[in-house]
């Protein structure tokens, strides 16, 4: 079972829990199980079935953008971390 690390900003959707243990063979599977009974979390993470662009997801500290995205395989003791991106700029 993989452990998902929930950032402080999203813990209101996990009853304050910093981590949630979820089964799944890929990051996508794990996330679908995570949001199955937390629809408000689904809205935070997904848009039209795809991960929102400003949400960073890591498997054992590797950004899944550089792995296989939501198809990245997850081993039993992996930690999946969610971290909203921090970005901005002087213009716009």
């Amino acid at each position: 079972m993989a452990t998902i690390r929930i950032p402080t900003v999203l813990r209101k959707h996990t009853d304050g829990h910093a981590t949630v243990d979820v089964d799944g063979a890929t990051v996508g599977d794990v996330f679908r199980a995570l949001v199955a009974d937390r629809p408000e979390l689904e809205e935070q993470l997904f848009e039209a079935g795809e991960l929102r662009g400003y949400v960073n997801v890591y498997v054992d500290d590797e950004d899944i953008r550089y792995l296989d995205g939501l198809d990245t395989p997850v081993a039993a003791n992996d930690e999946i971390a969610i971290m909203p991106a921090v970005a901005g700029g002087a213009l716009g």
Partner: protein
Amino acid sequence: MSTAIGSEVFRIDQHTWTALIDHAWSDFPYEVCGLLGTQPDGSIKHFPIDNAERSMTYYVMEPRQLLRAMREIEDHEWDLAIYHSHTHTHPYPSQTDIRLAAYPDAVYLIVTLQDRDAPDIRGFRIVDGDVTEVEVRRVDATDSNASA
């Protein structure tokens, strides 16, 4: 969207203030960014983070460095501040800053080098598009401990 002047104070010791200004100059004219974690005794741990965009007008914190720094801050339950520099513009959150502000519990600090002779740091809360200014007050390390 609205802007307000709040009564909140963000205390920053002189060492950290100088470190942020130095960081802003270090990659001029590109924007720099990073996190601060304020500990219960008021002391601040500084996490400079690479700007993955290396742009003069945009910043994205390098994801892996962001994860490591944020994990340390969250695990210790330190107060979070997020900073970046504006190298040519005034220290106020841009529409981009406001739109992308994903951390309502954080103080957003902007280091401005607009006045080359007098760099400045200003602070803001950004919650659901509303911007409230936070007074950034420079203190001695001992003062910050006493008043945090």
